[in-house]
């Protein structure tokens, strides 16, 4: 690796120049990323749909009508009906609020905890590192199911008592899903830190007298975010699906709230007779994941000073 110049140091030095402003520059680059822009639109449409959709498409989500069960898409029910004759479009729109909120919130918890733990362990090393990695290992090896049952048992009622049933369940779900998914992020960030803190540009910054915090915030952390962004997108999908598993433990939202994961699970046994039931929630999850990924790619390229293209 001889002969390589600390390119990043110069690049970040360049970024400090005020010219068009780093944010403006990033936005300009982001706009040129066509896929990312398209995805941002798709994501916007999805969010808007679940936010205002239920006001436009006012079919009730829980009107049971046995004469209309398992119907395919029609004008009356654009996405068909489920086995109780309930309108699937209304259910997907309604459930999407929860699924998206849980997905984003749980992902944020997982990434935040993971990055903090990973960064501290990676920078500090030694005893702090050992203690934090012990914690990570502990969380990795805890069996989820008994722990979940214990959490429900210990905290559900008290939390529900404090912040009300819906918010209480939401907070609990987000904390649990986030709490079970931060460990890979922590390990990834720590490994990146190990490698990056010995790199030339960090050495250079250190030699120039940068403080520890500045070194981390400006030089190491941004360069270790590649895997974190990937983990974030995977975690959103995982959280949306995990929410539905939780409701089978009696921890999630009540069974009549049609979150996307729940719809997919309910639909699976009818997959060969009523595929529409599963296809639309599946598509919704897929589109969310897809668009978030491309937006993530676009962001990375926009903020990455070394981009090749």
């Amino acid at each position, binding site marked *: 690796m001889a002969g390589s110049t600390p390119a990043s140091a110069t690049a970040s030095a360049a970024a400090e120049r005020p010219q068009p402003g780093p944010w403006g520059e990033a936005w300009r680059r982001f706009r040129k990323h066509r896929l990312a822009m398209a995805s941002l639109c798709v994501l916007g449409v999805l969010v808007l749909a679940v936010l205002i959709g239920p006001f436009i498409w006012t079919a009730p989500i*829980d*009107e*049971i009508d*046995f004469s209309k*069960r398992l119907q395919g898409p029609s004008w009356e029910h654009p996405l068909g009906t489920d*086995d*109780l004759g309930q309108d699937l479009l209304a259910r997907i729109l309604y459930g999407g609020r929860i699924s998206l909120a849980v997905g984003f919130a749980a992902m944020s918890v997982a990434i935040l905890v993971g990055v903090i733990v990973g960064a501290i362990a990676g920078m500090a090393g030694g005893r702090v590192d050992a203690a934090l990695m012990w914690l990570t290992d502990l969380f990795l090896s805890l069996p989820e199911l008994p722990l979940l*049952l214990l959490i429900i*048992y210990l905290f559900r*009622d008290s939390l529900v008592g404090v912040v009300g049933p819906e918010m209480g369940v939401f907070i609990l779900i987000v904390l649990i899903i986030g709490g079970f998914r931060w460990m890979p992020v922590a390990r990834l960030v720590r490994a990146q830190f190990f490698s990056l803190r010995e790199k030339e540009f960090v050495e250079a910054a250190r030699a120039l007298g940068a403080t520890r915090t500045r070194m981390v915030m400006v030089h190491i952390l941004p360069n270790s975010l590649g895997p974190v962004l990937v983990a974030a997108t995977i975690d959103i999908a995982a959280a949306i699906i995990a929410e539905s598993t939780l*409701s*089978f*433990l*009696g921890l999630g939202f*009540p*069974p*009549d709230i049609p979150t996307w994961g729940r719809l997919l699970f*309910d639909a699976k*046994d*009818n997959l*060969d*007779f009523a595929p529409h039931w599963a296809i639309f929630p599946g598509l919704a999850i897929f589109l969310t994941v897809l668009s978030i990924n491309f937006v993530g790619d676009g962001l990375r390229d926009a903020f990455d000073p070394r981009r090749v293209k």
Partner: protein
Amino acid sequence: MEETLRDLIGRVKRGSLSRRGFVKRVAALGLTAPMATQLLAVTGAAPAAAQSVPAYAPTRRGGGALRILYWQASTLLNPHFAVGTTNQDSSRVFYEPLAGWATDGTLHPVLAAEIPSVENGGLSPDGRSVTWKLKRGVKWHDGQDFSADDVVFTAAYSRNPQVGATTSGSYQGLNVVKVDDYTVRVEFERPTPFWADAFVATAGVIIPRHLFANFNGPNSRDAPTNLRPVGTGAYRFVSFAPGDTLRAEANPNYHKPNRPFFDTVEIKGGGDAVSAARAVLQTADFDYAWNLQVEDEILQRLEAAGRGKVNIVEGGNIEFIQLNATDPNVEVNGERSSITTQHPAFRDPAVRQAMALLVDRESISRFIYGRGGPATPNFLNNPPRFRSPNMRMEFNVARANEILDRAGWARGQGGIRQKDGVRLRFVFQTSVNAPRQRTQQIIRQAAQRAGIEIELKTVTASVFFSSDVANPDTFTKFYADMQMYTTTMTQADPQRFMNQYVSWEISSRANSWQGRNIVRWRNEEYDRIFREAEGELDPVKRAALFIRMNDLIVGSNHIIPIVQRPLVSASLNNLRPVLSAWDSTVWLLSDWWREG
């Protein structure tokens, strides 16, 4: 009515009335045909050899492999340690009781030479003893002879507290005496009308004394035979992986002619019910799939493939709703739903009646359970002689509204009815299970139309059905206004079933919530006639008592029966299984065969 019946039965016995004539006449009294024939059978007025078990046609063996699929896997093979149906079934492949329960609720001899009756001298007229004659020439799989010693030992083993047998309840309050090598007498402390418990069916399988005698104590779990069963059954042990697969092969020395038909039996466990149904009905990879708790519509579509069929065997299991008689929201000495309290809303009979009118059993049955859940107005449905003709079911939102209006429950804020500060807002809990959640939604919607708000709560089954004293979410604690689950009837006799409503069984902290009366309903008449039925030797009178008990509890509307839960299974078109709702799936595996 009882007098008329007795008179009619007497005439049948004397020959002055034909059995068909009898059925016709009792039909006029409101009794069904199966109920009538059963009455004749239990009073000894009908030939015992009724067609309770289908004829066995094969004249040869060598029928190839039989593959059975369970979506739960068995974990142990000692029938007296068995917890749960799966384990009882897998050990039953090898072990046999003296008699089993046929699906019409009559006994079928297995290791017994004949079923004891008053006529053959097996039953004492005072109800204090029963004498079993054992089949001769039966050999254990290891070649030893089966005899009365094994029967006596089985009772001693099961009731030994150090063994920790799960069947021990069937051997309390009785004494087992060896009369000779092939005769055993069971003596009861009190007159016992229901004598067919010890040595019968699941709890009654006989184990070999020569292999278990050294393990009749705290070392019971070390017995090698726990994992390598040696029984008298039609198939003998080959291999066992707990939680996965059990394999058996034909027993060449089986004690019934031309049996068994199959060369090998494989029972595979695990997975889920829907894919188990697929493996039989769609791909025909397996011959038989056990207990398909699947929405009937899916089963019907799978059946359309034409490879297999769905078997439905009616028993006594029932899915029902309980309306808490006590107040779940008031704590008395650290105990909620305490028997010292009364439910603020359900103490009004009008509210209970309205709730019963709001349960659309027909739709629940038709659209959710299908053939797997016929709607019923009764709690006690089977055997047919115990079924009450007096109860009705109705779904009528308008009438429910009318009743509530008349009782003074006026619609208040948000359209929810209230009276004297009590709002009709109920927490309705059940276990996590797709059909139950669907049923909850249907009931909630109907209740909404009558101004009753229902909050749905679901608890994961492993917690809901646990007996954990520390957990507030168990069904025995019943810290909710309403709950729904299936209660199982394990014997073709209602005594152990109808004790769910006697006052001394009320579930409370004092008995660590182990009482069977979970709805906490109390009724002096019920208690009295239950005691009476316990000692009543006359079968007709006894049936009338149980019917009265059913009418009392159902009439109170503290429980709302929804659907019966018959056993639903799938088998290939050419398989001829012999099934029973009162006994294990494989209770007569020796008589299973394949056509063509």
